[in-house]
């Protein structure tokens, strides 16, 4: 980075006519070429006035402003737009106002329209546009024009996630190209993430300018002093009760987000022999290898891989931060990370994988491929209505004596939290024990869990009677069921040596299933609550034993 000052403000003050209000007073700051400088402060602190002065839209009453090169400003969603003109005509008008001549705009027109993703809307009057579409057009125009200094006021908070990410990507491109940016935003995590230095304004005066963490800290202090609630500062909890990460939006799948400071180049799924694969057997090992290239030096990245069922149900999403791995810096260059699963405890079906390289606070990803990758888990077809395939002790292959048993899902769906009892079986009971045979309903992920089902009053022996138990998430997603022939006993135990369910609320169902009549003789459905806790914040439903191998550039 060259150390040339590109913006120099000395003792700048602004007194608005005719009210005589001093919006800025004695502000001096220098911005070096290639920096991204953030301006923070409360509403009315003078942020917009300062940006307007840097952009030459306002003249300072006192002091001096020196800037070098061509400046562009984007204030309030492209305020210069005219509702009666079409998008295309607005590009020409706006471009002309920003100082581009007609040939320059004509050259860049297709780029602007392409970036804005407005499609045929470009020839519709702007009055028909939504706020988001205006923003897209506004940002597309400036992003495609030539400039040395770009000034953006409060805009990045609007628009959909995908476009926001595109903007961030563009902003990082600008930084790489040595452009200088001055931005404001109320989202402090975002400002810390994007900016190189931050200036804090309060009542028109510059309170602090420098280290971004310090600026944000002072701003928070300022707000706290004024009695604003700013929320907890992410205190690390040792036990996770509920990560509340149980589903993803399938309509976002296939989208690629992020600032592209790091680019995911290649993602490969490998089987136990190290060969690339697109399918594997249930409970087989799986290795996911991701090659990436870092275009910038970045601080504290972490890597994440998430697996979803085809309908968006979140199966498992560990990342290196959850696993306590810290990478203080990621240098420019090529690298890779590998995630090894010892055993994929998923039921047969189609799955989607997201790959992400995140910043420390997961504000804006460096690169994020949302549900872009697919793999298939093969196995017994009758398991496909459930999510998981967790090993049950005592059964070499689960469910061993029930390969042909299909409990009636229709009945289960219609009787959520209902009790069906019959005189044939009498009332039943479920007790859940830990490894010390203590009865509990709160377990640690990976703990031994024993389900004991007891029908004391059952009268007659029927070889077609099975005891069935099922795990449900409290959002009614069926995790896994198990059946066992009743035989001559009236009691059955199901033991999970290590129940891998992740934190959250679950419900256990049990009943007696008669295979001849294809119906539940009795059913206690989702009546028994089970709570899981874990020492890690891993997202999803099931913990899969894994390890990471990271090779940094």
């Amino acid at each position, binding site marked *: 980075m060259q150390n040339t000052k590109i913006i120099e403000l000395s003792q700048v003050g602004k007194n*608005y*006519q*005719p*009210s005589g209000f001093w919006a800025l007073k004695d502000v001096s700051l220098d911005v070096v070429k290639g920096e991204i400088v953030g301006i923070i402060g409360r509403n009315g602190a003078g942020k917009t006035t300062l940006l*307007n002065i840097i*952009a*030459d*839209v*306002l*003249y300072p009453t006192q002091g001096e402003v020196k800037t070098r090169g061509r400046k*562009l*400003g984007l*204030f*309030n969603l*492209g*305020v*210069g*737009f*005219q509702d*009666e*003109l079409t998008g295309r*005509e607005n590009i*020409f*008008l*706006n471009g*002309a*106002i*920003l*100082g*581009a*001549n*007609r040939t320059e*705009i004509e050259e860049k027109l297709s780029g602007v329209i392409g970036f804005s993703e407005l499609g045929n809307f470009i020839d519709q009057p702007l009055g028909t546009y939504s706020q988001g579409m205006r923003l897209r057009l506004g940002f597309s125009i400036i992003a495609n024009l030539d400039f040395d200094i770009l000034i953006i006021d409060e805009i990045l908070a609007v628009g959909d996630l995908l476009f926001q990410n595109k903007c961030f990507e563009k902003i990082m491109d600008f930084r790489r190209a040595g452009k200088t940016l001055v931005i404001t935003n109320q989202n402090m995590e975002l400002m810390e993430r994007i900016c190189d230095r931050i200036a804090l304004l309060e009542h028109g005066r510059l309170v602090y300018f420098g280290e971004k963490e310090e600026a944000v800290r002072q701003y928070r202090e300022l707000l706290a002093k004024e009695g604003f609630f700013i929320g907890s500062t992410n205190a690390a909890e040792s036990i996770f009760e509920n990560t509340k990460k149980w589903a993803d939006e399938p309509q976002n799948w296939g989208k690629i987000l992020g600032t592209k400071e790091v680019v995911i180049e290649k993602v490969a799924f490998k089987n136990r022999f190290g060969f690339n694969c697109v399918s594997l057997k249930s409970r087989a090992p799986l290795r996911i290898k991701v090659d990436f290239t870092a275009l910038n030096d970045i601080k504290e990245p972490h890597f994440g891989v998430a697996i979803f069922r085809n309908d968006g149900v979140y199966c498992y999403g560990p990342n290196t931060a959850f696993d306590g791995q810290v990478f203080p810096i990621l240098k420019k260059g090529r690298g890779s990370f590998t995630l090894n699963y010892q055993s994929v405890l998923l039921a047969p079906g189609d799955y989607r994988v997201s790959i992400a390289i995140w910043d420390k606070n997961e504000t804006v990803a460096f690169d994020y491929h949302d549900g872009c990758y697919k793999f298939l888990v093969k196995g017994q077809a009758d398991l496909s209505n459930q999510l998981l395939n967790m090993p049950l002790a005592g059964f070499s292959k689960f469910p061993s004596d029930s390969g042909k048993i299909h409990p009636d899902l229709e009945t289960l769906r219609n009787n959520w939290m209902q009790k069906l009892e019959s005189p044939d079986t009498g009332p039943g009971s479920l007790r859940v024990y830990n490894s010390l045979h203590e009865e509990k309903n709160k377990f640690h992920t990976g703990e031994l869990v024993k389900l004991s089902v007891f029908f004391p009053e059952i009268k007659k022996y029927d070889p077609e009677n099975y005891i069935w138990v099922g795990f449900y998430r409290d959002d009614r997603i069926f995790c896994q069921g198990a059946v066992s022939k009743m035989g001559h006993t009236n009691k059955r135990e199901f033991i999970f040596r290590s129940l891998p369910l992740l934190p959250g609320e679950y419900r256990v169902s049990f009943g007696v299933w008669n295979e001849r009549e294809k119906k539940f003789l009795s059913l206690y459905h989702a009546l028994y609550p089970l709570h899981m806790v874990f020492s890690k914040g891993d997202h999803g439903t099931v913990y899969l034993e894994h390890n990471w191998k990271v090779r940094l550039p």
Partner: protein
Amino acid sequence: MKNIFQEIISRRSLLRELIAKDLRARYRRPVLSFLWAFLSPLFFSVILYVIFSVFMKIEIKEANFLLYLMTAVFTWRFFQEAVSSAATCLMDNRNLIKEANFPHYLIPLSLVIANLLNFLPSLAILVFFTLFILKGVPLFIIFLPAVLLMHCMITFGLALIACLAYIRWRDTKYMLEILLQALFYLTPVFYSLSLVRQALSQKAYCLYLWNPFVAILSFYRLTLLKGFYQAIKLDVHWFAWAVTMPLIAVAVMVIGFIFYFKNRKYINDYLAY
């Protein structure tokens, strides 16, 4: 002044977009679009013809009364529309002004030019009517572009002053309405100059002639109406006008620009207010 010319040339893309914006706002929605710039003065002329040439049959010594009236009404309409729409133009376009730094006088300039483009078809119809009624045009028509230029310069100068005044004093809009009305009646639109000469004392008449719009209007009539020169040769001082009017036009524009450069720094302040 030279710098201003350079600036206008370098920002001609913006000027063109601003003009296009104004014309689009006017003619995008109507099905007949720009044709209205012809149709509207044409129908108006027909109405004037029916009233003043068929019903009232007014005759004046200077020229055919219909043409005498049309030259005044059309040129006055151009001036009035340009100035009154320009008065609020900075306010109307405050969104553009708040977005980037550009020469703000381009906005009133674009409005004057847009109104000029809108006026040219009227002028064409006027020429067509004179050809039809008087069977020809005077040789003075070669000066028409110069007259038009002077007219535009005065219009622009006043527009610039009006729009700057308006952002400071919102009363300007109403005062301007009254002022324009007064000027309209002080200009020989539908009465003859000789009538004024008879009614006023020598001194008062002299003063009356110094109204630039009397001169501009007379110039238009001179260049368009055959026989007009002969008819009022003795009522006015053509030579004095020909010398002073260009100077006055330049002066009005220069005053407008001085006013602009004095207030430029505060334009945005007042718009936000």
